[in-house]
């Protein structure tokens, strides 16, 4: 079971990874977008960490609601509303639960990706963060379904996200700013997929000992 504290640590760890990788994310975005993804997410996750510090959340769901709200309010760009909506949907899925089981976490992750897909209208193969989220959620689910431990499932999710990220290199973008490039978008990793890997890697890290 994951407690509120673990969710809090997830966000702090994500913010740390985003900070450490901000330049890389921005460079990826420079290649096929407008060179601000790292800057946007750094601003967004710093705001999320600050919001959690200022008004500590009582439940895992409340953590995610605060994070979603902060991301929407502070990130801007395409990624802000998308990640923010993802966290809000995940939060709703968790409801008032004080502790979260691996099944509940799986449902929350599925809710997140559903929210993102609904808002952005992107399908798998469109070369967006959805290409990292979708296999990650599937890998998590099948690990849990196969009786795997939570730590195993989150690691599988992060690994699958990484696979999804790699798969975006070959793809031509059909959503977001990179789609303006048409065929010239091929040959580059999608920045949003890259940040999704960080998010899930952070989750694997904070749940590694559970």
């Amino acid at each position, binding site marked *: 079971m994951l407690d509120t504290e673990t969710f809090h640590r997830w966000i702090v760890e994500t913010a740390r990874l985003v900070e450490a990788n901000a330049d890389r994310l921005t460079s990826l975005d420079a290649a096929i977008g407008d*060179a601000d993804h790292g800057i946007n997410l750094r601003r967004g996750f710093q705001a999320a960490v600050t919001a959690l510090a200022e008004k500590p959340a009582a439940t895992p769901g409340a953590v995610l609601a605060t994070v979603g709200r902060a991301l*929407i309010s502070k990130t801007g760009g395409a990624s802000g509303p998308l990640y923010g909506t993802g966290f809000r949907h995940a939060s709703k899925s968790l409801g008032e639960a004080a502790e979260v089981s691996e099944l509940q976490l799986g449902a929350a992750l599925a809710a997140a990706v559903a929210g993102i897909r609904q808002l952005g209208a992107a399908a798998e193969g469109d070369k967006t963060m959805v290409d990292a989220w979708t296999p990650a959620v599937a890998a998590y689910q099948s690990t849990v379904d196969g009786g795997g431990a939570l730590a195993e499932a989150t690691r599988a999710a992060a690994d699958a996200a990484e696979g999804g990220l790699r798969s975006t290199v070959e793809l031509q973008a059909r959503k*977001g*700013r990179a*789609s*303006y490039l048409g065929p010239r978008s091929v040959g580059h990793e999608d920045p949003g997929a890259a940040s999704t890997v960080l998010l899930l890697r952070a989750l694997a890290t904070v749940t590694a000992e559970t």
Partner: protein
Amino acid sequence: MKKLINAPDDVLADALAGVAAAHPSLTVHLDERFITRAGGPTPGKVGLVSGGGSGHEPLHGGYVGYGMLDAACPGEVFTSPVPDQIHAATTAVDAGAGVLHIVKNYTGDVLNFQMAAELADDDGVRVESVVVNDDVAVEDSTWTAGRRGTGATVFVEKIAGAAAERGADLATVAALAREVNERSRSFGVALTPCTLPAAGKPGFELADDEMELGVGIHGEPGRSRAKLAPAKEIATTALEAIHADMPLSGDVLVMVNGMGGTPLIELYVVYKAVAEWLSGHGVTIARNLVGNYITSLEMAGCSITVCRLTPELTELWDAPVETPGLRWGR
């Protein structure tokens, strides 16, 4: 990176404080990050709210004022504004007649305005949105995010603003805004890249003899790289791309827009080529703008925007406007 700034993270806050100090006709809501007319909402008038990433000045804050916008929401440099600030601006300018959101077609802008519209709707404010997508450099297909919104935004804001000032209702103002957008097309060319203050290095690279054809206003790559060409050829490339997409005829409104780092003397050289191409194709320039109206930080280059006018659009274009960026008739 050589910029007249204090610190990369302070650019927007400092610039907004500068706008506040420079223009008594505007109220700059520094904390909530939006700009309105100083007088508050005009009773009974439809409110016009636009916004988008900063770095395109005078767009959008410079177009707040009589005959144009009621509010502008500047995002961080090249980053769409967030729903909170758009929501706050929308509520601030609603005078009971509803609010039109003028949104450039970028996923980030569209999503953030959409969320803001939902928040405003919860407050009982009627919101219509028009999405500007005039850039012919990118394909408009159901398989993409569609065309980008660029220069036509200035035309939409001016003409819809004039209609709203005359008392047109929300549906009419929105329909006019969409009509202007549908009748307008743009094409941009960059000679040099630009540098986001927070990034510190150029967003893309161009060799000494290269230009980017079809560049986006955030320095997004365009249709192709090409060898730097004479102004006349550049104008021809742009106009042919526009003409292929929307055959030009009759009276048009033309803007030759500098991207921030191009001197006015060069824009007039381009304008000459544009005027000659159009008159050679039987098209009449009824109105024009030559200058920096929608920029991309210090990028060198220009964009050309053409709107096929109707008598109604011409009349609304000519109506008085009094903003820091566009002013005539008062």
